[in-house]
């Protein structure tokens, strides 16, 4: 499988399998770092200097595995229920594209999410349910296929035209649903509306998604030139995941309330009716620049309760449902008219351990926490097998993933010995977890705390938290105000390691719990290179 994103030039990344473990610096902890009598993991002493951007990122993942700032939990799966009346394959980025759904019985498709949108402005949200609704109508310059590989959409090509500049060649013959033609000015306006607070009357919460992009202007009739604040190796990956293109004249002639209740994009579906909080109905756009969508009509609705969604699917009232809980999987699989469609998502679930708070300021203690937890059992019993155990912050098939780094095995004896070695024998720790924010979050936290509590020299318990309050403590810019030990998830649809490590594990990251000069240096070096 391809990684989907390179260091910014748009070509897919080859599968991360280095020729040999030592020469490119991706030696595994299991390759001779553990000698008889030693406990825990150490970095090999004979690591070669990384040469490429990918190697620098892989080295960072190796260091992070050994330093263990997290208990590495799991990669979340997106588990959908699908009617046998449609042909559809789930995407890794949790987006449901109506264009990829082929009805085999009739010409209408219905999707049931867990919640509706927070408004139809494609630049004024950061949630998957809203993205699933606006993505049927709006498109970006670049996009991704179901496996995460970058593909052209409203751009037909792209290149680095300077140290702090990239240029997109724009597709001709594209029109908005209002009938206006897509122009370079629309592309420039869309980018500026996100990254510049004085454009478009919007303070976009997506500005940090286009990190490093400072603005854009129309080049010739068929190009848009994007400026960045210095070299940006992931700029094309960012545009493949973010930045929907809007019609400048339509945006400027309507107020926020209108824009949030209507849509005017270039996508395969146009808005027919919008009932806020209830449903959105689309019809196929006849002048779409590609072949028309397989479905003539698309409806997106929501049901907060998982059992309600499952019942809708089993009664043929909907064609695709999201977030099938583990306890309902067998019910869907056993039905004649439905089946499960699951795929590994781009979300990693982890337990952060604040690096400068006792007892987590000890590497031995942090490693002990990883050895103490039987993640295989948690995946099997709590997540019904729909998850992958992780060994590093970066997910498999992302740029920078280190395939030679193994997950920590379940070894309570080694955990106990490491706790003794750390000097924190008898420590009492509390794991803070949000409730209902992530799939089985409380159950996972309770299992993790249970395993840790079984160690004779550590006590652990769980504290359930409202996600809003927990997030507020973690995002106030002061690492000391939040809990020292917490469960949280992170989604990264750029398929690049840097977009997980930078915000979560570098010294200045927005949600960081860790600081390590070596990691900072490796990431900074990686970000200064294209390849």
């Amino acid at each position, binding site marked *: 499988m391809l990684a989907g994103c390179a260091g910014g030039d748009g070509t897919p990344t080859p599968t991360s399998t280095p020729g040999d473990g030592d020469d490119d610096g991706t030696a595994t902890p299991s390759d001779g770092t553990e000698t008889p009598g030693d406990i825990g993991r150490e970095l090999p002493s004979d690591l070669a200097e990384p040469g490429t951007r990918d190697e620098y990122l892989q080295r960072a993942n190796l260091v992070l595995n050994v330093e263990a700032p997290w208990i590495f939990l799991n990669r979340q799966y997106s588990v959908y229920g699908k009617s046998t009346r449609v042909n559809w394959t789930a995407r890794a980025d949790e987006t449901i594209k109506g264009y990829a759904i082929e009805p085999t019985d009739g010409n209408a498709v219905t999707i049931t999410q867990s*919640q509706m*949108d*927070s*408004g139809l*402005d494609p630049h*004024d949200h*950061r949630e998957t349910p809203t993205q699933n609704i606006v993505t049927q109508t709006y498109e970006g310059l670049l996009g991704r296929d179901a496996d995460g590989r970058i593909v052209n959409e409203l751009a037909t090509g792209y290149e680095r035209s300077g140290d702090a500049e990239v240029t997109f060649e724009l597709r001709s013959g594209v029109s908005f649903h209002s009938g206006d033609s897509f122009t370079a000015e629309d592309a420039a306006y869309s980018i500026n509306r996100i990254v510049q*607070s004085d454009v478009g009357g*919007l*303070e976009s*919460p*997506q*500005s*940090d*998604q286009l990190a490093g992009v400072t603005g854009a202007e129309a080049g010739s009739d068929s190009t848009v030139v994007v400026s960045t604040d210095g070299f940006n190796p992931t700029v094309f990956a960012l545009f493949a995941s973010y930045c929907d293109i809007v019609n400048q004249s339509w945006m400027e002639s309507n107020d*926020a*309330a209108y824009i*949030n*209740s209507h849509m005017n994009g270039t996508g395969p579906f146009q808005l027919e009716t919008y*009932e*806020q*909080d*209830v449903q959105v109905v689309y019809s196929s756009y006849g002048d779409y620049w590609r072949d028309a969508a397989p479905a003539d009509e698309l409806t997106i*609705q*929501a*049901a*907060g*309760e998982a*059992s*309600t969604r499952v*019942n*809708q699917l*089993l*009664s043929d*009232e909907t064609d695709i449902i999201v977030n099938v809980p583990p306890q309902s999987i067998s019910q869907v699989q056993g039905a004649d008219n439905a089946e499960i469609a699951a795929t590994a998502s781009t979300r990693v679930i982890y337990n952060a351990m604040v690096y400068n708070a006792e007892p987590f300021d000890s590497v031995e203690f942090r490693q002990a926490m990883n050895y103490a937890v039987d993640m295989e059992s948690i995946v099997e019993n709590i997540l019904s097998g729909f998850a992958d155990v992780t060994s590093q912050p970066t997910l498999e098939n992302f740029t920078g993933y280190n395939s030679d780094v193994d997950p920590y095995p379940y070894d309570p004896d080694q955990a106990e010995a490491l706790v003794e070695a750390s000097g924190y024998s008898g420590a009492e720790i509390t794991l803070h977890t949000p409730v209902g924010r992530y799939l089985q979050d409380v159950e996972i936290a309770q299992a993790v705390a249970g395993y840790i509590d079984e160690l004779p020299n550590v006590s652990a318990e769980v504290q359930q938290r*409202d996600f*809003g*309050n927990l*997030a*507020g403590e*973690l*995002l106030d*810019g002061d690492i000391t105000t939040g809990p020292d030990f917490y469960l949280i998830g*992170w989604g990264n649809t750029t398929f690049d390691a840097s977009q997980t490590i930078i*915000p979560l594990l570098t010294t200045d990251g*927005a*949600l960081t719990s860790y600081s390590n000069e070596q990691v900072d240096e490796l990431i900074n070096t990686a970000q200064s290179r294209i390849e």
Partner: protein
Amino acid sequence: MASYSRFLTKRVLQGLLVVWGVITVVFLLRYITPGNPIDFIAPLDASQATRQRIIEARGLDDPLYVQYVDYIVGLFRGDMGFSYRSRTPVAPRVFAKLPATLELAVAATVVAVIISIPLGVVSATRRNQPADYGATLFSLLGISTPNFWLGVMLVILLAVQFQFFPTSGRTGGFLETIGNLLVLKVNGPLVSFTGGSPSFGQFVFELPMEFSAFLADGRDWFLSLFLPAITLGTYFTALITRLTRSGMLEQLGQSYVRAARAKGLPETLVRYRHVLRNTLIPVVTVVGLQLGTLIGGAVITEAVFDWPGLGTLVIDSINNRDWPLIQGCLVVIGAGFVIVNIVVDAVYAKLNPQVMD
């Protein structure tokens, strides 16, 4: 009559005071409740600078008294402000939920009253007989059964298994169904909110009546409402049954009943004209209070059946700390509760004029 008018006027003024109190308390709660709406608007990886810009753009940093005065003034214009999360006006969004909420609340109440009062009367008049035991058992089951479980079981059995009803959602509505019969129609919505202020649709005179559409829409609407109404009304039914039974038993033991019988009045007249009327006085009060509660409190039933009512909107807005939307919902719910209570008081005063003293 003059005293009845004075009584009602006093109740209305008290009601307005209560609604103002709700508005003010909800406003103050904003500042003592943990959680900041910015945590739900801005993403996890937003920089502090981005968060601050979003705070300023939504007026989240204005002083409390400025926001309070703006809100009260806006309410007099029918403007409830704009949602922090979606930046759309709050008023149309809240009032759009009202028909669904009222339908479910009234339907549950009708189910409860239709079943419980006759059942309570039968139970009281056939005391210690099989009918009484059956009614008592039904009451016990109704009060003991969690409506979440009941709703899910009804869906699995009657919707998924036998497909007699849809599993969830609201199809059409009362107004849409009746609209097929009305000769006088409205182009567009009856009330719309342009820029936050209300305006009314254009009334037109149209012939002929669409009776077949009325039947079709009515059937679909009824089928979608049936299971949620049963689910929501079951506890209520059990409660009113027991109340009616105990009330009738108490009244049947009163001396005026013995006197009426001694005078030779037919038993049916004694029971249904005198005893039942007195029994219904507290029942009317409870029914009214329950109806007021249902206007904002059917969250579980709305969740199970994906019924687009106010309860779910309130919970979602609280979870998102979307304060303008929370306020809008609570103002409408509070006003609805007050109105229902005023009506209950008015009916109660008619049944028992002594309460006006």
